[in-house]
């Protein structure tokens, strides 16, 4: 049996061995993240069938839960870890030829640390350990946003840093209050004793935690940092931030609400916040000229949709939310990677400068079109299935308020279609200027783009490849008694 702690350990070990490898040769350092994340991806694929049979609890330090720091590898954890390793692997392949600006060594170290943080967040069963991994993720992403050292990058990074560190402090306040109430840091242990404390006190702690994670997840009104940070970072980092980093914030919110606090009463409010985020994100995206800023605002909108589906809180609702996480991660990573290379070739981030590029870069443009169609929710792509399941879940709860919500969400989807169709039209049907010398990308850049396009189509046509795992993951979130049982033993 493979030990799941390797999922955290391997990228961490490889990250700090990069300087050693570069002593041998400067050329191999950029392949280290590829190797590390390929190993990670293999391990997580090996673990999936085992975890579906029986969740794996790893206790560190030789103590038994609740006294030790433990990793809880349930279906949800392994699903998100697989997604993170997979996207991380593809982006690291892209970065092999995309990242040319020195110091590339530091880029690769920070990139691997970001992945360590994200995987740690989704696997850990200890609430303070969650905070530590969260800080690893945040600090490495602050540094990576400023990686280009240009005017926009540094400005975006300092904005992100100020808001993000306030968010982290709020999370720590929430954790401190929880420790004060329960005297334990183990999430299952807290969850099993949650009824022993006055609900008003718990609400204060929950509010701190949700606000803190909400800043990382960019839920309205805490989303001010996201468009700047995602649009100013190097494109590979935008892909990883949009694809992974903000999803860990959503994971944090979901874990707190469903597993630890069992706070059913605020779910309608969470759904409303998600809807508001969706509307604000899509409407702001509609009037952007800068393509990366547009994609960043569209990420805010999609996060809103994911949070909205979480707020439905029925098994189909949480399932749809997780499905939307998959389809958004694939599509947004693809869009940022494809757009990143178009920007690199054209030399401008303005949408009109991409006019007519569809004839010069047919594969990249096709990938971009497929990614945007998937985000809009056109069949036969993955986004169609996930949006369909959200609509299905919202109708199935049979509450009038959710019917109204889903109607507004569908209007937001129409807005989304408006701006994405506009870009695709620009790519193919408008006459461009100064694009005669542009040629199609080649080599390492195309591999992740083609794989992501393939994954979107395959999941759209055959969703049953992942629905089994997603259903189990949704059951893990909603069945807190089983989660407590896994960690603390059979009672």
């Amino acid at each position, binding site marked *: 049996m493979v030990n799941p702690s390797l999922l955290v350990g391997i990228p961490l070990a490889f990250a700090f061995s990069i300087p050693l490898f570069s002593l041998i040769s400067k050329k191999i350092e950029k392949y280290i993240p590829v190797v590390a994340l390929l190993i990670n991806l293999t391990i997580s694929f090996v673990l999936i069938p085992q975890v579906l049979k029986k969740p794996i609890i790893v206790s560190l330090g030789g103590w038994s839960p609740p006294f030790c720091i433990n990793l809880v590898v349930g279906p949800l954890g392994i699903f998100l870890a697989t997604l993170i390793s997979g996207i991380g692997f593809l982006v690291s392949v892209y970065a092999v030829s995309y990242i040319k600006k020195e110091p590339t060594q530091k880029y690769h170290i920070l990139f691997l640390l970001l992945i360590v943080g994200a995987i740690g967040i989704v696997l850990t069963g200890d609430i*303070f350990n969650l905070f530590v991994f969260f800080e690893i993720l945040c600090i490495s992403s*602050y540094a990576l946003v400023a990686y280009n050292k*240009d005017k926009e990058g540094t400005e975006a990074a300092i*904005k992100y840093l*100020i808001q993000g*560190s306030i968010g982290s402090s709020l999370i720590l306040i929430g954790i401190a209050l929880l420790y*004060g109430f329960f005297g334990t840091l183990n999430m299952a242990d807290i969850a099993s004793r949650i009824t022993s404390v006055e609900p008003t006190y718990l609400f204060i702690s929950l509010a701190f935690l949700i606000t803190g994670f909400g800043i990382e997840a960019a839920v309205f009104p805490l989303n001010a940092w996201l468009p*700047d940070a995602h649009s100013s970072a190097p494109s590979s980092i935008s892909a990883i931030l949009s694809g992974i980093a903000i999803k860990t914030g959503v994971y944090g919110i979901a874990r707190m609400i469903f597993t630890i606090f069992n706070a059913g009463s605020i779910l309608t409010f969470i759904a409303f916040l998600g809807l508001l985020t969706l509307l604000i994100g899509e409407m702001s995206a509609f009037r952007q000229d800068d393509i990366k800023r547009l994609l960043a605002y569209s990420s805010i909108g999609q996060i809103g949709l994911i949070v909205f589906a979480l707020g439905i809180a029925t098994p189909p609702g949480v399932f749809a939310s997780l499905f939307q996480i998959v389809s958004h991660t694939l599509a947004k990573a693809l869009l940022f990677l494809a757009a990143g290379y178009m920007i690199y070739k054209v030399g401008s981030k303005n949408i009109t400068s991409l006019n007519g590029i569809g004839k010069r870069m047919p594969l990249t443009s096709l990938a971009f079109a497929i990614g945007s169609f998937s985000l809009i929710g056109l069949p036969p792509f993955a986004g169609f299935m996930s949006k369909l399941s959200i609509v299905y879940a919202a109708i199935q709860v049979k509450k009038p308020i959710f019917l109204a919500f889903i109607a507004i969400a569908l209007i937001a989807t129409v807005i989304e279609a408006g701006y994405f169709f506009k870009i695709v039209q620009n790519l193919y049907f408008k006459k461009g200027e100064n694009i005669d010398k542009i040629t199609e990308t080649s080599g390492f850049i195309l591999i992740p783009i083609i794989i992501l396009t393939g994954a979107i189509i395959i999941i759209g046509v055959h969703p049953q490849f992942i629905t089994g795992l997603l259903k189990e993951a949704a059951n893990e979130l909603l069945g807190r008694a089983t989660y407590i049982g896994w960690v603390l033993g059979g009672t």
Partner: protein
Amino acid sequence: MNFLFNWMYYFASGGLILVGLYIVLVKTNLIKIIIGINFIETGVNILLISIGYIKGRTAPIFSTTDINPADVVDPIPQALVLTAIVIGVAVLALALSIVIRVYKHNKTLDVTKIKGLKW
């Protein structure tokens, strides 16, 4: 008076957090904002320590053998605070180095004048 005495550390931590938030929200100089963030972090650390503090007990350091485990305060929050301090230092160092870059590009630290990116 007794009430204030019992809750002194909590008031101190809450006060520091609020002072820090005030600085972050009101001040326009980037260095001052970062100092404000540090105020918040220090406040949270004091909150953690005061949660683990039990009146009349000593530090949980077993340097000699005659210390009874019942005479020391809860050690876990102190371990947490050590971790939080290290994280705080990392954030502070990164923030200051980014501020140097911001200053090089904009020749000012006033956040109201740094408007390269907007809504």
